[in-house]
């Protein structure tokens, strides 16, 4: 446990010492602010449902940028050798890194706290959908982060990691588009695998355990795949 925390703390120290996070955060917050202003001023409704939708699309790009360095950079710098010759299990390493990325992402989301505050000062928003919306963004982002971490474990090139991470996230996002073509039980399955469909529920204010478990399962699967890929690449 101590080693897991050590990895997580190191990730946070490195993240906040490098300009990448600040640039990603600044660009994201500007975009989110534009969504908020345009949507809320046009609809004159005190909710964030459509703002959340737009943010969810931006997260397809943002998540792999937050995870691209996780393993690719360690490989490139040679620090991976330090990690792999320490009494640290792969699972501790991978979970420590995911936790670091998740906390970074949580901080990014927390910086949009002005949206609900603004709604609250000018209207009477319903708290439920606001909270489930944020929860949905976090859980969907978590799954994307795990996918991005997996992508980073495959390469020592951060650009390649972003491209693969984005590809996986987008595929998860649009997988239901295939379901009308395929039809039948497979079509239903693809519909169920769609993370954007799950997110829609959160954004509407519906909190379904199935959706929570779905996001956490995806996170678990990509965490497992990361461990496997790191293990496999040593041989």
């Amino acid at each position: 446990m101590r080693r897991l925390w050590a990895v997580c703390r190191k990730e946070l120290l490195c993240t906040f010492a490098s300009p990448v996070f600040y640039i990603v955060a600044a660009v994201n917050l500007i975009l989110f602010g534009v969504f908020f202003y345009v949507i809320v001023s046009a609809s004159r409704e005190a909710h964030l449902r459509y703002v959340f939708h737009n943010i969810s699309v931006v997260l397809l790009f943002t998540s792999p940028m937050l995870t691209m360095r996780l393993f690719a950079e360690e490989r490139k710098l040679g620090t991976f050798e330090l990690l792999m010759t320490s009494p640290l299990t792969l699972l501790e390493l991978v979970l420590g890194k995911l936790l670091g990325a998740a906390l970074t992402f949580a901080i990014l989301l927390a910086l949009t706290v002005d949206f609900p505050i603004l709604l609250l000062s000018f209207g009477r928003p319903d708290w439920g959908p606001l909270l489930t919306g944020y929860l949905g963004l976090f859980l969907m982002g978590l799954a994307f982060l795990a996918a991005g971490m997996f992508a980073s474990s495959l390469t020592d090139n951060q650009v390649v990691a972003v491209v693969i991470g984005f590809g996986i996230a987008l595929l998860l996002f649009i997988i239901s588009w295939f379901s009308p073509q395929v039809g039948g039980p497979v079509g239903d399955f693809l519909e169920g695998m769609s993370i954007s469909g799950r997110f829609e529920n959160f954004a509407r204010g519906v909190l379904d355990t199935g959706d929570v478990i779905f996001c956490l399962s995806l996170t678990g699967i990509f965490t497992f795949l990361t461990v496997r890929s790191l293990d496999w690449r040593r041989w």
Partner: protein
Amino acid sequence: MGPGMIEVEGLRKQFGTTVALNDVSFRVDRGEVVGLLGPNGAGKTTMMRVLTGYLPPTAGTVRVGGHDVREEPIEVRRLIGYLPETVPVYAELTVREYLQFAADLREVPKAEVADRMARAMGQTGTAEVAHRVIGHLSKGYRQRVGLAQALLHDPALLILDEPTVGLDPSQVVEIRTLVRELATHRTVILSSHILSEVSQICTRVIVIHRGRIVGHDTVADLEKRLKGAERVFVQVRAPGVEALEAIRALPGVTAVTPAEAQEGTAAFQIECELGRDVREDVSRLALDRHWPILDLRSVAMSLEEMFLKLTGAGGGS
């Protein structure tokens, strides 16, 4: 005789079809300071990576402190302190943050962390840069920070891959002194492609060439075998042909090759029999003939040439 610190038997390491290490067997006892000597590309780094468990062996067994690197990798890692060839530091962290991270990974007891960090920084001379960001440090300091990381948990076995490469001469001396100090109560294995470095620090040398062990020797024996494996370079103000013939006639000289020289001077590479230093004879000759000596020095043989000598493969190929 108990189990050795390192026991390697029939080790083979392949990358695809490339054989990096072949049929390597050796043993290192507790308290020994062993040098792994070989030219670049000989397999030194691969050897160390296998010892630390970073790379699994293709065949053969490798035991460190009685633990098989494949079956009990975590146990092996607890025993070792490792400085890889590329110093594994994070440019964004301060020295203190980095060492704290290493201490956590190595599970240094929390109550001892501050002490151990202070000691490691003291030993490696990094205390004065403790609060600086590693990315802003010179190469020499980074190397020392890497070494501090390897020492932090007071490991029983210290594995250092080319610890002095890229340092300036005074730093090299410091690191050598430090390694010798460290070696007093632990096992050290270090790699180098510089013979003199290994002979100054180590008690025993394993010579490795093209993935095979070609020599197992104490430092004294190795030096005896390689003695005279040096050439002499001389530059004198003298007529070229006359000087060439006179030097060639000196006892013990086996070959003289003219080298490029300025007008009016003559320069030669002189090779001599094993165990003979012709520098005295050359200077006496020059004195007798009234040739001013502009330069006279021994030239280290390249390691590659030395290995040819060691493996006896010199003549034909």
